[in-house]
């Protein structure tokens, strides 16, 4: 039964990892930007949520109503200035700038907020309560809510990109920015909107991780960025549902590893990632449908 529990936990944490990953996937799919500062931005979002709750005493769960728009605005602004400036130069410059940004944010957070870990809503019934079946199976409500949120976000994104008018515009710009520009679309603005959406999901990821675990400045890269990336590669680049599957595979690998020995948790996840890289470098799902 302990193994069944591990697999259920793995599937549910997979939702969290898919939530980490969809912003990374979207930025790469549309702008061809690999956002190395992705995880650090999620930590910033989590810290903003902690700050808002501390100052306004508003319910923790509703803090996303403020944090998501704030991060979306940050995303739009960052895309229109720094990231676009780097993109105008070269792919190499973009990577260097994003790496620099990641290190600057992480160390900036260390300077201002210290290396202490912080949780979001640690006293909340949602965070502490769980469904129990038998003595071995224990499923936290929070994980179920996060999984549902991840599925909702992915469904929404998929629908938005494939069905809506603006989604078509984003896909057109992703395919060929110059051609879209000639057809009357301002591709820089569209890039900004795509970055805003990606940063919105980053905000959700940061809050979700802060509730599920503890935030600290190094969690941005050590956990969020690397797990998001592993989920993207396992699932297959450019496929949103593949990302969910990748997250679930990563989650199960980690939980089964932890079941063997608690210190194998992260390592087991990475070993599965490396195995996928060897056996199926194109990922588990290949639709060719760039999200």
């Amino acid at each position, binding site marked *: 039964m302990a193994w069944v529990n591990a697999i259920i936990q793995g599937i549910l944490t997979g939702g969290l990892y898919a939530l980490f990953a969809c912003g990374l996937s979207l930025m790469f799919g549309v702008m061809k930007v690999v956002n190395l500062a992705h995880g650090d931005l999620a930590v910033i979002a989590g810290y903003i949520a902690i700050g808002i709750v501390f100052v306004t005493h508003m319910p923790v769960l509703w803090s996303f109503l403020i944090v998501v728009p704030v991060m979306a605005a940050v995303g739009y602004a960052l895309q229109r200035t720094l990231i676009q400036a780097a993109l105008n130069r070269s792919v190499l410059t973009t990577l260097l700038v994003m790496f620099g*940004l990641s290190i600057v944010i992480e160390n900036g957070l*260390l300077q201002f907020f210290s290396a202490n870990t912080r949780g979001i809503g640690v006293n909340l019934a949602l965070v502490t309560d769980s469904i129990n079946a038998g003595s071995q199976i224990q499923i936290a409500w929070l994980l179920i809510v996060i999984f549902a949120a991840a599925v909702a976000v992915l469904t929404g994104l998929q629908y938005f990109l494939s069905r809506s008018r603006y989604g078509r515009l984003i896909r057109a710009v992703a395919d060929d920015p110059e051609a879209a520009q000639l057809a009357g679309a301002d591709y820089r603005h569209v890039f900004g909107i795509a970055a805003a959406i990606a940063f919105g999901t980053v905000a959700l990821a940061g809050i979700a991780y802060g509730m599920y675990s503890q935030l600290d400045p190094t969690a941005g890269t050590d956990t969020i960025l690397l797990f998001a990336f592993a989920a993207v590669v396992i699932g297959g680049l450019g496929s949103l549902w593949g990302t969910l599957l990748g997250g679930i595979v990563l989650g199960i690998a980690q939980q089964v590893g932890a079941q063997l020995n608690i210190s194998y948790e992260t390592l087991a996840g990475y070993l599965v990632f490396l195995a996928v890289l060897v056996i199926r470098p194109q990922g588990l799902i290949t639709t060719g449908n760039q999200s």
Partner: protein
Amino acid sequence: MTRAATTAAGNPAGTALGIRVTRSQRNVAWTGAIALVIVAVLAYFPYLVYSGTTTILVQAFIVLTLASMWNLLAGYAGLVSVGQQAFVGLGAYLVLILAIHGTPPFAGLPVAAIGCGVVALPLWWLVSRLRTGYFAIATWVLAATIMLIIERFSSIGGGTGMPLPGFAGMDPTYLTAYTYWAALAVAVLAMVSVYLILRSRLGLVLTAIRDDETAARSSGARTGLARLLVFLVAAAGCGAAGAVLAISQLQVQPAAVFNISWTAEMAFATIIGGLGTIEGPIIGTAVYILLQQTLQSYNAWYLIILGLIAIAIALFARRGLWGLAEDHLKIRLFPVGYWLHDTALAPGRIPGS
């Protein structure tokens, strides 16, 4: 240093037109002489200065070695690896493992460097499947994985690390001096290797990749092989730096040697000094040491400021401080390109040199 007309001799059209091909616009034999003098003076430092100074210089030599390796990776081969701390850590751990089994650390240093180069071969096979940004994060995951695996072995200190054995009964003054010479030797060797690689055929391929990868590949350059070789050389170089680090710290801690800040430091030093120029890492290391020493009582602020400068330089001065100096002063300390001299025309540089 000047290889006048040797290349042009094989090119009848060139000689017929009276074009002379040289490695540099001026005779740069003096740069070689000055470099030798500088290295000789630096080698004499342990007799001249206090150990505090040599300790700072050891740190500078480590960063210079790392930066010149990262320059080869990102500046020439277009491989932005953010997982080079994997090899810094492996180098340190190889020295530790050899020392536990009785090999003196200074003898373990070259073995550790070669070991890292060997380990890099299967790792290349893993990460070379991914391109640009995804290659970058894949190297990062690889570094994290290697650290997690090494932490599993309690015989080499597990998650907390352990002191480096093998120096029992050694006079601390000699130890400081030997450490300094080892660090200097590694840095000089790294610089010389980069220079020789860039002057070779491989260097031509790398320069072609730096300027335009698609064009290089369609002209028949074996870009994949060139990249593999650079990855191996950079792994060995970073491993040597990690070995020096272990010897200078006298202990090996997984969180310290596998820290992402090693890659941040080598990348920032290279970008600030000048990506894709041999001289860049020297300038960048000087800026790094200057900032780090000035701000050492303010924790990680030096890294934040270094990062902000690197972002600004990546955006506004792509070839760094050295690139700016070179454009204005028209000098090169390490000539790897070719210049054409013609009586009718003003001397011009072959594009991409």
